[in-house]
């Protein structure tokens, strides 16, 4: 990086731009993202994202694993929202097999996925606040996330990469007291959200750091394929849970929170509100979990008929899509994953231009990327 700059006259004063290498080892690039910033003083003139430091060839691995064997791998993409990844994959294969998970399985899936959404948003909120310099919210968020992870652990034994669902339904029955745990968490959670809101929402430093920072309007969002809270913060009321209901979302009442200006503050508000809505969904769902089987009619060996399928769900970070091509064998012919983080990351360059270095950090935070998913 020194060399780059030296070629451009080598000084802070003489150089037209100073190239600052942010990452792959940097406290706030959320993993191993590397961003080359072209700076004029502290003002960002352009960026270049260098990704691939965490590339594991997940899509290629899929071609050499059976359908069941591949399911744990998707957990390692967006590792802070493993349950959602698993849901998308299982439902995609189910669609390919033309089977449906039984109602009980679908409701439990919904509950776990919504809990996972809350957990993912909590982690986002904590790290985002930390990036902007607020130290305390991180620990509060971790405290609540811990409750959710405990529920996961009790349910399937794993906390992070859960592999909670199986193709065709669930492997595990919900444990005794599952509903009670979820209910207790949900009841506490309203009060806890208020704590973050008290710390951040009205704080004038927080507002000045996030308002009008990293604006991405609706047209740009759609043009770039940005989805999830980023799209909704720009005012587009688009949520696959409503638009193409999957799992058991069609049974529950919830709102799609939207913002107006598409800046960092709006994205923050949208995510906070989404956590509230997820809590409501969980509360509705545990009221009546249908009795019955938890596994659909799926054989020991999964051999979907030849064909292709695309299935997408609303993961915490945006639209997570699976495109699976089957040649009739036990292993997929091709799996292509549409990761929300990767697509959303495209917007980074447009969002940071003209902002300061400090805003770059805030904007990377507000995009809520997970490098495991970006690089796959």
């Amino acid at each position: 990086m020194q060399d780059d700059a030296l070629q451009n006259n080598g000084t802070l004063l003489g150089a037209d731009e100073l190239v600052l290498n942010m990452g792959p080892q940097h406290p706030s690039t959320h993993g191993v993202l590397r961003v080359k910033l072209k700076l004029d003083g502290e003002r960002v003139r352009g960026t270049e994202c260098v990704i691939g430091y965490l590339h594991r060839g997940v899509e290629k691995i899929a071609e050499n694993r059976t359908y069941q064997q591949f399911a744990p791998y998707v957990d390692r993409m967006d590792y802070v929202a493993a349950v959602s990844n698993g849901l998308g994959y299982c439902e995609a294969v189910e669609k390919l097999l033309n089977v449906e998970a039984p109602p009980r399985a679908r409701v439990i899936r919904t509950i776990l996925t919504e809990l996972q959404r809350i957990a993912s948003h909590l982690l986002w909120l904590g790290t985002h606040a930390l990036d902007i310099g607020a130290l305390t919210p991180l620990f509060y968020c971790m405290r609540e996330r811990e409750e959710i992870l405990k529920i996961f652990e009790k349910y399937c034994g794993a906390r992070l990469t859960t592999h909670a669902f199986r193709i065709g339904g669930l492997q595990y029955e919900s444990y005794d007291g599952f509903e009670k745990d979820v209910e207790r968490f949900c009841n506490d959670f309203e009060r806890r959200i208020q704590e973050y809101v008290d710390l951040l929402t009205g704080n004038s430093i927080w507002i000045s750091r996030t308002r009008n920072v990293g604006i991405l309007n609706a047209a740009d969002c759609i043009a770039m394929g940005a989805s999830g809270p980023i799209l909704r913060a720009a005012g587009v009321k688009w949520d696959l849970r409503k638009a193409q209901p999957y799992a058991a979302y069609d049974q529950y009442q919830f709102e799609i929170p939207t913002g107006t200006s598409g800046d960092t503050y709006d994205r923050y508000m949208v995510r906070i509100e989404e956590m509230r809505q997820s809590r409501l969904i969980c509360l509705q769902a545990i009221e009546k979990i249908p009795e019955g089987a938890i596994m659909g009619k799926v054989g020991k060996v999964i051999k979907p008929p030849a064909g292709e399928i695309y299935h997408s769900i609303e993961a915490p970070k945006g639209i997570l899509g699976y495109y699976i091509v089957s040649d009739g064998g036990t292993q997929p012919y091709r799996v292509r994953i549409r990761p929300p983080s990767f697509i959303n990351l495209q917007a980074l360059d447009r969002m940071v231009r003209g902002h300061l270095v400090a805003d770059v950090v805030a904007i990377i935070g507000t995009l809520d990327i997970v490098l495991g998913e970006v690089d796959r």
Partner: protein
Amino acid sequence: MNPTLHGILVFLETWWVELTSGIVIVAVVPLVAGYVVLVERKLMADMQARLGPMRVGPHGLLQPIADAVKLLIKEDIIPAESDKLIFWLAPVISMVAALTSMGAIAFGPAFQVARDINIGILFVLGVSSLGFLGIILGGWASNSHYSIIGALRSTAQLVSYETAGGLAIISALLLSGTLKISGIVQAQYEQHVWFVFLAPVAAFIYLVASIAETNRAPFDLPEAESELVAGYMTEYSGFRWALYFLGEYANMIVVGSIATTLFLGGWLRPFPNWKGSGLIPEGIVDAGWDLVPAAFLGLIGVYCLYRAGKQPAKAQTWFMWAVALACFVVAALYAIPALLFAMGIGGVAGSLSVAVLPGLNGAFWFLLKVSGYIYVFMWLRFTLPRYRFDQLMHLGWYILIPLAIVNIFAVGVAMLVVANANWNHGLALTLATILGTVVTLLFAALLVRWHDRRTESASAASMAPDSYAG
């Protein structure tokens, strides 16, 4: 006797208090700074629903020592392309400046190295401001982009906020009429009021400016860890890093001491002039105040006893007992001279207590106030997000500095009014203070409004056409 030896003896005889205080400062302050770090981590943990350091020693009490040992034995890394001399020198400057400036601070009526220098407060300010030479040189010498951006930010920030802080101090100096530290405290004693009540706006500006000067959140941009990794300290590790770190915390103690001296009455206890009304006789009031430090220690001891039963391990329970016992012993030792003094017992013990007690009490109150000030620093750090650089500069130049200038005039006019009005002194003082503060705050409100409108229009303008221009 050998004349040289005689000379040295005379020298020692004249200067022993100063020499001892100096040695104490050099030896103790790094340790104290280490423990301030521990207290900060514990407080942070408490506010963040966790425990903080617990492993090294009971409740992590030996953590600073373990940290120091770790930092000492760490590999000493000097980056290959760095400027070795400056890289070596910079942290030393930072630390030395902070320690030297402590020389003129009066930690009580008796504890002061450079006693009675005529320009005491300026000395503290000037020498502690040299510390940022260490920051800027260290940032430059590291030969890293993060470091140099940190150093540039630090320079701009310190220059701006030192101006604001200096102007705020002028308000207090106007009220005291002297630069001598003991004189400033004396002035607060004679005027029957801490200057924070006479110049609240100035005290607030100084609070903000001192946070910025010590690079603490929400003004910790030079070392903003989420943006610049560690700013000017990025390339530093091991003991050099520790020097920077200690310098920063020593600086916190320095600014806390300046604020305490100027605005919070220095080593004076609360209500120093109130000798008791008709109901309570004078001696009892004084004795009561004299017992406050002992009572304070006693309360800590009681709290330790209360907590002792709740410790998870036997060793920790014993430790808590030991701490409680130590507190009680010290409190008792402390209380004896106060009681002797109160009961009017003469003799050797009595005269000793007369000699020692005011000094001890003064140091207690002074350190208590400094701790309170530093607590505010920490509290703000855990609560607030970080400012952005342009916002920081705007706050400094567009709001704090004009406000401080207006405040100087407000305080000056108020003083004139008080001096010339033939009213009751206290009434005039109160009125003038309220008026001055109101005028300044009105001005502040105007400034903020103007500034908001300005930034809004500016950001709207820059956002609309420009934001997507390649």
